């Protein structure tokens, strides 16, 4: 019985994924480059929110790391894909240090190494933090974001300082971004629906009770944090090779804040919610751009107000926390069983 359902769900999922990629292929050919760019950004947001939700929503450890981790992944991958000549041309203040200056590797290993480097840093940070009370995770990760900025600005032989890295190849396209997003969702959903996911949720719900279940809370928080870091690092590599230019200003706290809005609006603790939040934000924030542009109301000229979008988002976040803590999905997840049950109930009610 269970197995039959599993096969049915598996088939349905496969068909949906194929349909999604057919649609993406169509858009890739016929849509404007503006739309394609937002599609790419949407996929990267999905990678980041689904990972971020693993530590914040599923495991319940409030962390503010994404901007730092995305930066590390982006810089690592970019430094690995740039050719020696490109590096020589980019590093005009001080030359790039050896051996980085003559290394150049393909895109896929580069973004994977970006993920691994990020994961290692997350692990090192996790040791002091998870040993003590989890509260400090937020402040340590927030501080780490500043360190990354300080490092990116000052370690000129590695990061090229404030000038950043320019002229990266635009490897990231629809297939890379959405392909990675699909893989990340596949992995994280697998993890969340396993015994490990239950252990993480147990830590979120009641840490003492989780310990009483024999769960090593230190290692499971660490696992969630490191896995999230890995995928955020990979997302950073994709982002760098989408924008082709990266510099320290790109990875400010704004990025983390936006991701936080996405997972909260989608429903903290729901992977489905994280995906919905990412899609809504990627397209919604484009719509809200008008707030910062100059307008003419009834013949009255109103200049654009920079920062207005962010004011709106921060008010939105506070209101969500006070009045709609569950966001769109709460902690529910999309499932085929849920859909079938929904329709069955409707049919039953009609009968």
């Amino acid at each position, binding site marked *: 019985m*269970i197995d039959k359902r599993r096969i049915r769900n598996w088939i349905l999922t496969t068909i949906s994924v194929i349909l999604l990629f057919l649609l993406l292929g169509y858009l890739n050919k016929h849509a404007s480059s503006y739309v394609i760019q937002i599609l790419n950004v949407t996929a990267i947001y999905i990678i980041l929110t689904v990972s971020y939700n693993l530590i914040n929503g599923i495991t319940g450890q409030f962390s503010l790391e994404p901007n730092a981790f995305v930066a590390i992944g982006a810089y690592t991958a970019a430094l690995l894909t740039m050719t020696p000549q490109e590096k020589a041309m980019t590093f005009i203040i001080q030359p790039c240090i050896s051996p980085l200056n003559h290394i150049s590797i393909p895109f896929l290993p580069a973004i994977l190494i970006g993920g691994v480097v990020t994961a290692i840093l997350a692990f090192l940070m996790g040791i002091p933090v998870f040993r003590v009370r989890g509260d400090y995770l937020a402040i340590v990760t927030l501080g780490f974001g500043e360190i990354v900025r300080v490092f990116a600005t000052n370690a000129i032989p590695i990061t090229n300082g404030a000038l950043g890295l320019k002229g990266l190849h635009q490897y990231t396209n629809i297939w890379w971004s959405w392909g990675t997003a699909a893989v990340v969702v596949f*992995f*994280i959903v*697998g*993890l969340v629906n*396993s*015994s*490990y*996911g*239950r*252990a993480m*949720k*147990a830590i979120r*719900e*009641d840490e*003492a*009770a*989780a*310990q*009483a*279940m*024999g*769960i*090593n*809370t230190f290692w499971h928080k660490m*696992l969630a944090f490191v*896995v999230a870091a890995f995928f955020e690092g990979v997302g950073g590599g994709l982002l760098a090779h989408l924008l082709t230019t990266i510099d320290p200003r790109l990875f400010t706290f704004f990025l983390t804040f936006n991701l936080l809005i996405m997972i909260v609006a989608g429903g903290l603790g729901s992977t489905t919610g994280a995906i919905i939040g990412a899609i809504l934000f990627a397209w919604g924030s484009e719509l809200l751009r008008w707030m910062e542009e100059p307008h003419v109301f009834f013949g009255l000229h109103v200049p654009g107000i920079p920062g207005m979008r962010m004011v709106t988002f921060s008010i939105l976040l506070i209101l969500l926390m006070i009045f709609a803590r569950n966001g769109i999905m709460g*902690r529910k997840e999309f499932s085929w069983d849920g859909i079938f049950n929904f329709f069955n109930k409707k049919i039953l009610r009609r009968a």
Partner: protein
Amino acid sequence: MATLLKTENIVMKFEGLTAINNLNLEIQEHQIFGLIGPNGAGKTTAFNVITGFLVPTEGKVYFKGEDITGLKPNHITKRGIARTFQNIKLFPEMSVIENVMTGFHIHRKFNFFEAMFRLPRFFKDETKMYKKGMELLDLVGLTQFANDQAGSLPYGHQRKLEIARALATAPTMLLLDEPAAGMNPQESSELMDLIKKLRDEMGLTILLIEHDMKVVMGICERIKVLDHGEEIAEGTPEEIRNNPRVIEAYLGEARKVA
């Protein structure tokens, strides 16, 4: 019969306040042992010391002859001591079956890579966990609530779920902190049957804190009485019932309340 759990001169002080003074417990395999005493006697503190949630100021805890004093709660659970909590600590937003399955986590047979890649061993073990979880729910009579949110269950069911969840860790010894609290007479008599069944059929050793004298006198083979952190008596239910110190310290107070 061999000794399973032994505490030696446990002293627990909080900022100068002595919650337990010189506790010596000795619990035999397959015994149902009661720990009773008026409120504030230090019973739950004793549980917390045994299960690693508190490190005693002085004294030792031995389980299966090994010193487990100061081990972390999760390590103690892995060695075979499971517990429930006085103020129910379920995972309220997870489903009933998920709550139970959490207890199987320490016995999982796959690593997190296998979960992420969804390899066969992961599916096989998850299916097994689900099946065994349903069996435990059946044992405590909660099968029909398997997919409900744990936090939405009525109080008595939550207590039973907590027992099922503790059993999932496959303990040799089970510590129950006021399992009958909030249960009606029918539920508590079912609870007594369940506890007996756990001992007789699953071979568990049980240490329980309970205020409901009917339950304590009905199933415990040996009882220890605490008052203000001090041991005041130990013996069979019969002996405890007739011990004047106990009547004065505990039953007297209970009568006053009643």
